[in-house]
């Protein structure tokens, strides 16, 4: 295990990481992953991270050496897309049993490698180490080496057992495995002065293909994408690229930096989420390529493409802006998305009420500030309970997050959109941002919300205004009617123009209003999506108050 701990230290000692560079020598040795807290931890392990980073290589068989949990509970769960091979979606595991644990699992692993090569003949096999074989001392390096020599196929050890740390560390250890055993081991058929590597791009829902046509148009060739829709031979010969773009800033910085060191491939960090970022990325690519000897006209041609694509995207987004302007979004995600998605949202006119920075680097945070101003609410670690409160308190109109926290929003009857790896829509580039805006619009304006937020007819109308049976959620407010009253009155009825129930009730009472139109005249309430709510208030008040009082008011 000594080689693994040395490797972890090496991965932690990342000069390309600004956060790391700021640390003292002693702190740097401790590494950059926080020890997860028993009983209140979330997120995957290092094995998970390694698998996420490498599984999108489509012509590789990914073999998990461990008991059934590691692969059996998780296989075929990523939304990456492949343009060709499907072997990456096949689940391979040694499914270690008790006997293997007593006598060691190396023999089984070797046999498994042979079986895969005989049956499926993949371009390569990646072998993932997990906790148990690491504990009992299975030497996957030795097995992979022996199998490689015997069968004449690359068999790559990925030494990232779950218990060494977080998903992020696993991403980096996976990158290290590529650097140690794959990159530079083969030569490309031919090279062009416009060959690039994309590092940390996983082609989720096929989103890379939203951008690739632009590359093709400009004559920029993706020599290797690490790892979305990638192929073994491409990554093995990726050292011949002229430039690299680091797409997911945190996960594989070690790969980009070490490829610069070893092969002199310059890299920059960028993103294809949002118009501005897409344009910057294309611009940077063209600039770096020209610096490295690509024809100078690439810059002009890139600008032309950018101008055309921007105009088209803005025109399409423009039609949504009136509908989305002022809508407030809460963004719970990590890393690169914490600053790249907000930019996209702002382009569509949305306001950002908060963005999570739990997994973001200092650099990410700086970028957020630059784009959103100093006062953007950066959320370090938000408990689901607090997200729920925020949504219930109508402090946000829509939440964008990963699948695991979706029910926090949905159960509060608030619109929600998946922007993590399990999502089924692609949001990259100029086309993607339009798609994202379209999805947000669809989510926000679905007529379903209005029905869901109405209480059942037999439920107490006094605690309405809120979804289904959820009214009691305000917890402490439910204690006495006197305490309840202000919060009842403060409930927003018109979400568009922010008019609360109290204002509407007062207007009805004071002016003796009987119709939604009359309420609209006397208050800011729009009477569009809140029409039913206003009707309910009118109905409730005409029942609860004696007609004489209303006549007097008239």
């Amino acid at each position, binding site marked *: *295990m000594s080689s693994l701990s040395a490797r972890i230290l090496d991965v932690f000692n990342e000069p390309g990481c600004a956060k790391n560079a700021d640390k003292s020598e002693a702190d740097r040795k401790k590494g950059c992953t926080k*020890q*997860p*807290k*028993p*009983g*209140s*931890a*979330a997120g995957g*392990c290092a094995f*998970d991270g390694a698998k996420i980073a490498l599984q999108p290589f489509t012509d590789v068989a990914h073999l998990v050496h*461990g*008991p*059934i*949990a*590691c*692969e*059996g*509970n*998780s*296989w*075929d*769960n990523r939304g990456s897309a492949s343009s060709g091979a*499907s072997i990456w*979606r*096949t*689940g*391979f*595991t*040694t*499914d270690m*049993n*008790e006997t*293997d*644990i007593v006598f060691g699992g190396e023999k089984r*692993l070797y046999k*498994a*490698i*042979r*079986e895969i090569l005989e*049956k499926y003949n993949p371009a390569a096999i990646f072998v993932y180490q997990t*906790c*148990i074989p690491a*504990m*009992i001392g299975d030497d996957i390096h030795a097995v992979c080496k022996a199998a490689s020599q015997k069968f004449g196929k690359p068999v790559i050890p990925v030494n990232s*057992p*779950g*218990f*060494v*740390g*977080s998903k992020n560390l696993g991403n980096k250890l996976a990158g290290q495995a590529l650097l140690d055993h794959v990159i530079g081991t083969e030569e490309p058929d031919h090279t062009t002065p416009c060959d690039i590597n994309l590092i940390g791009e996983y082609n989720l829902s096929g989103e890379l293909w939203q951008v690739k046509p632009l590359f093709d148009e400009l004559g920029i060739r993706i020599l290797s994408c690490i790892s979305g829709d990638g192929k073994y031979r491409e990554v093995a010969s990726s050292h011949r690229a002229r430039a690299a773009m680091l797409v997911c800033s945190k996960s594989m910085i070690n790969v980009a930096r070490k490829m610069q060191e070893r092969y002199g491939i310059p890299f920059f960090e960028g993103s294809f989420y949002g118009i501005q970022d897409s344009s910057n990325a294309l611009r940077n690519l063209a600039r770096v390529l020209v610096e490295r000897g690509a024809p100078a006209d690439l810059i002009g041609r890139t600008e032309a493409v950018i101008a055309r694509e921007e105009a088209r995207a803005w025109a399409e987004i423009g039609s949504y802006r009136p509908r989305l302007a002022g809508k407030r979004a809460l963004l719970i995600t990590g890393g690169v998305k914490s600053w790249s998605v907000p930019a996209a949202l702002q382009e569509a006119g949305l306001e950002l009420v908060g963005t999570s920075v739990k997994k973001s680097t200092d650099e990410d945070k700086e970028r957020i500030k630059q784009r959103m101003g100093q006062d953007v609410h950066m959320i370090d670690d938000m408990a*689901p309970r607090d997200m*729920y409160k925020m949504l219930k308190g109508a402090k946000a109109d829509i939440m964008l997050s990963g699948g*695991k926290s979706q*029910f926090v929003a949905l*159960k509060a009857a608030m619109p929600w959109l998946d922007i993590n790896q399990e999502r089924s829509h692609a949001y990259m580039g100029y086309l993607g941002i339009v798609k994202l805006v379209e999805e947000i619009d669809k989510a926000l304006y679905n007529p379903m919300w209005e029905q869901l937020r109405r209480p059942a007819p037999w439920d107490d109308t006094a605690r309405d205004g809120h979804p*289904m049976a*959820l009214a*009691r*959620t305000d917890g402490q407010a439910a204690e006495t009617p006197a305490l309840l009253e202000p919060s009842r009155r403060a409930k927003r009825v018109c979400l568009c123009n922010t008019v609360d129930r109290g204002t509407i009730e007062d207007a009805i009472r004071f002016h003796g209003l009987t119709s939604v139109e009359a309420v609209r005249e006397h208050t800011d309430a729009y009477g569009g999506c809140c029409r039913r709510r206003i009707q309910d208030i009118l109905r409730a008040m005409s029942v609860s108050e004696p007609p004489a009082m209303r006549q007097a008011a008239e």
Partner: protein
Amino acid sequence: MAIVSTPSKACTINPLKMSQPIGGALAFMGLRGAMPVLHGSQGCTSFGLTLFVRHFKEAVPLQTTAMSEVTTVLGGYENIEQAILNIHHRTKPEIIGICSTGVTETNGDDIDGYIKLIRKTHPQLANFPLVHVSTPDFKDAFQDGWEKAVARMVEALVRAPTSEAERDPARVNVLPGCHLTPADLDEVRTILEDFGLKPSFLPDLAGSLDGHIPDEFKSTTIGGIGIEEIASMGQSGWTIAIGAQMRRAAEAMQTRTGVPFRLFERLCGLIPNDEFIAFLSEISGRPVPTKYRRQRGQLADAMLDAHFHIGGRKLAIGAEPDLLFDLSSMLHDMGAQVTAAVTTTPSPVLERVRTKEVLIGDLEDLEERARRGNCDLLITHSHGRQAAARLKIPFHRAGFPMFDRIGAGHQLSVGYRGTRDLIFHIANLLIADREENHQPQPDSWRTSMSPLGSSGRSFVDATESSIA
């Protein structure tokens, strides 16, 4: 009699099996205010959690002791202690269920001993319900984890009745296997209530993972059977166990409380439901309500309508033992041939599956056998989707996980009504496949060997794998 066999390959390809600890954790999710914890590295929990969320489309409580490399070497006492204290303090659960994993079983953590010590050191936990189940990943499967967890719950949480007078003959314990969905549990509940019986389900996933909207946000389970109700299960007149996996828990209940049990291995199909309804009528002393007489007639009629389509069809099925036994028996009773059967773990029901051989294997084995046997229908969980696409045959998703379609929790297949709907669904899959892929062509009958035309399927070639 089916032969139960295990393949001799070293590499499991496209696993059918899932691990034991998450089966155990799911059982705890049928308890109110519960927080299941996996004692292992945080990935063990993360994978399970993602799987449950994708299946139920619900928030799912599941925590971890977050074992690291160092604590694995030093022993997990402190991690368990911290996890319990953290959860107890932060989420205020009514019960914590702890399932061990491969990591902590390999390093030999004595969790029962740890729990005793934790109770002693922290008086606030002295009587707090903490239930531990040993569920190493490197043995057994999902269904076994569930089986062991429920048995442990009975041993740890049910109170032995002090006198016979406490017994309430109208109360019935129901111990459902993990192959029953929340919809199945609700169906069984309705049936029991229609006989005037008062059921207690252990565990009750229909209370927690049926998709209801809770009154307030909780990070523990939002429903399910409460601790007090479990404690009083010893007062019931009967225990009904559903699925052979529940024999262990039913026996534990009988040993502890003297409550007799009746095991129903199947609840899908006409005869199994006749037995079930007759039993309920007997223990309740009530005649069978008109509702069920009508439902029985509807099922009989559905069988008449569907046998044209299901009869003679060759079925490939991959599922955990109890689900495999239930569904394959029902379809066999409808005239289908069980041509390929693959399961995850040994069970006494396997040799009674109506086929030649049941393989304890993976989805590669199932796909291969389905191809070789020219099967017409594939039944397994969502991971069978790739195989179904390659085989180009209709695919019915059954069992856990079902992550690529919605409504998994509301898929009903028990009772007369559930069986009726399932038969319609499967017959319709076959009809649609026939219309789309097997329309007669002018040359369909020219080669006498392929009555189904373009598919080239031949009844003469196919081995008769089904036994009467």
